[in-house]
């Protein structure tokens, strides 16, 4: 049969068109909307404002602060999650008994719906009157930590960050673990025979060989943090202290989440165009992070 390259196009077309419709079209439409002031969901009242929405966002204290917040989450949460993931991977590949049990146990938090997990952390673990944290710190004699009001608006961000790290460890442990397991045993064994310590073997052999895996994991982590929505929403949806860019975007598009049952005024106003602009900024940031990470971790085909 003649190799007709046009056939490739015809066979791929349905998938490509479907992808473009559900994925590319919303991106393009959001970008289009971001240049307009849109005060209803039908888009029936649109006014071209150029870069007005972007300028408004850049002047919004709430929006800018929300980026600072996810910056802290990215850095500190990332340190907590990747630190734990490496530690657990090392433990799980060290030949301990019951590996599959521990692997499942570490992954378990990912199976708990965020809303249920948040209720557990806020109403039980961090409960100031009878919570687990209070009991543990009291038993250890750390009264100042036992009486810390984790779920007050002052500390809610840190309480959420701890819960978020807990919820993310399992996922990233599996990714790192898969990479660690691919590192050939004989390399580590020969290093050990040559007198390398465990730490040296980790930093000189395991880590360099994991570069591609780490790059992918960091890209995933960055995107997850950029879009962080469920945890702050389930933790304390009315507290400004946990507002992330995605939460802010949502409140622009659907009205304030605060304001209780009967709040009108600000609660009823929607800024669809400005929300779209916030979405565009988030997309650009994701692309930027991806680009920067590709520069930092230059892709090299390592064969081992």
């Amino acid at each position, binding site marked *: 049969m003649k190799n007709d390259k046009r056939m490739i196009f015809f066979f791929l077309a349905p998938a490509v068109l479907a992808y473009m419709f559900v994925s590319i079209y919303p991106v393009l439409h959001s970008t289009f909307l971001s240049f307009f002031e849109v005060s*209803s*969901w*039908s*888009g*029936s009242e649109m006014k071209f404002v150029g870069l007005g929405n972007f300028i408004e966002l850049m002047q919004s*204290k*709430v929006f800018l602060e929300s980026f600072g917040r996810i910056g802290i989450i990215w850095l500190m949460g990332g340190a907590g999650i990747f630190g734990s993931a490496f530690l657990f991977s090392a433990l799980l590949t060290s030949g301990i008994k019951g590996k599959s049990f521990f692997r499942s146990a570490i992954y378990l938090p990912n199976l708990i719906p965020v809303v249920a997990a948040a209720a557990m952390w*806020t*109403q039980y673990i*961090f*409960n*100031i*009157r009878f919570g687990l944290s209070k009991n543990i710190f009291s038993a250890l004699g750390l009264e100042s930590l036992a009486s810390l*009001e*984790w*779920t*007050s*608006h*002052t500390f*809610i961000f840190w309480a959420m960050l701890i819960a978020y790290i807990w919820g993310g460890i399992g996922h990233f442990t599996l990714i790192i673990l898969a990479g660690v397991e691919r590192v050939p045993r004989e390399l580590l064994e020969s290093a050990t025979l040559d007198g390398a310590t465990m730490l040296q073997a980790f930093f000189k052999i395991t880590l360099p060989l994991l570069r591609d895996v780490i790059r992918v994991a960091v890209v995933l982590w960055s995107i997850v943090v950029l879009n962080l929505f469920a945890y702050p929403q389930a*933790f*304390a*949806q*009315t*507290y*400004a*202290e946990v507002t992330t860019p995605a939460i802010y975007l949502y409140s622009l598009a*659907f*009205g*304030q989440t*605060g*304001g*209780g*049952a*009967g*709040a*009108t*005024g*600000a*609660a*009823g*106003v*929607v800024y669809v165009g400005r929300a779209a602009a916030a979405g565009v900024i988030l997309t650009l940031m994701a692309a930027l992070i991806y680009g920067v990470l590709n520069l930092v971790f230059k892709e090299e085909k390592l064969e081992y």
Partner: protein
Amino acid sequence: MNTRKVITLLITLLTLASLILSGCAPKTTPTPAEQPTAAPTAEPVTLVYWSMWNEDEPMGQVMKAAIEAFQAAHPNVTVDVTWQGRGVRKLFTAAIDAGTVIDLIDNDTGRIALSWGDKYILGLNDYVTQPSLDTAGKSVADTIFPIILNQYITKDSGSMASVPFNPYVALWFYNKAEFAQAGIAQPPTTFEEWMAANETLKTAGIDGFTFDPDYYTDIMLGDSAQRYVGCDGLMAALTDKTGAAWQSEGIVQWAQDMEALSAYALPGTSANLYPAGQQAFALGDVATTYNGTWLPSEVAETAGPDFQWGAFSWPTVTGGVGTITDYDMGSQGMAITKVSQHPDVAFEFIKYVVSVQIQQEVVNVGYASSLVDLPWSGPIADAYPLMKNATTAFGWACNGWDSGDFFANDVIPAFNDLITGKMTADTFLATMEEKAKTNIP
């Protein structure tokens, strides 16, 4: 023989045809004479109702009863209900914009009239004068608390936008058993009496109050400030770019009193996340909590049937603007959309929702009825006379949310600290004055 064949063929064909045709026809087609005379129209009508309730919750069951009663009386009308839950407030306008046909929508009366208004909602001025369903000699409007019925009108046409069917009032709820134990006979009406009561409770080893700051700091703030400077006075402070209003006499006194009150907060109140605070009250850990008339049904299982519920209005202050009969109140109301093709039939359904028969069901499940002459029962029985004697209704949190981001991002968190004893009045006032200068656009 030929003739017989033709006849046989004809008979067979006729029989077949009659069988086929009768199969096509509706099995039971009621003749017009069989239909009840009460039907507003003989044509089959479907009303699409997007409900703010979930089917299983008590008010969902009440709405179901209303639909059943209405459909029984109007066999030609079907109410096609979708139990959207509270999220409907975010879906409604988008759905209408996208061309969805919805006839009936229920939600907060303020939101219906002010946020949705004339663009989405049909004015009901000409409808509410119709006779009520089961209160002889009274129109629909006559049967409903006027203070609630007239609280909100649309901005453009000034129309009544919805018929209230489940009002709420923000109140201090108190544990009567604990008040009795401490020797307090009557709930306080003035700030001095209130502080004395708190002191008496403290002596008896009972903590004064708690609440859920993530949900109710806004009404604690707005409703307390109303007693000192009124909603206009609060709004003036929330929109004063110079920040000077935060050093005015009434505002200063308010902040100082709130600092004094904070001494009686249940320890750990600032760490409450809904529903931790109201649960603490229902468990008897604290004597009072500030909440709305929906509270008893939310904590019914924790409080149990023996809990002795009492309610009082936010105490007043000497020289203050607000009076004891001013309340933060509102209601859930039923409205007809602008796109409804059957507004008359839809209003007929609304009459059922606010009939004595259905409103009695509302009372039976422990919720507040909007009918003037139907007393509330159980835990909110004490709140009914307060509602009946109310003279002024103001919006949620004294309409503080209308002032914008300064209220949400600066004033609420600071007041949260003030009322839970984490910040002094002086720091609160100085912080607000400072932030007003930079954060009010």
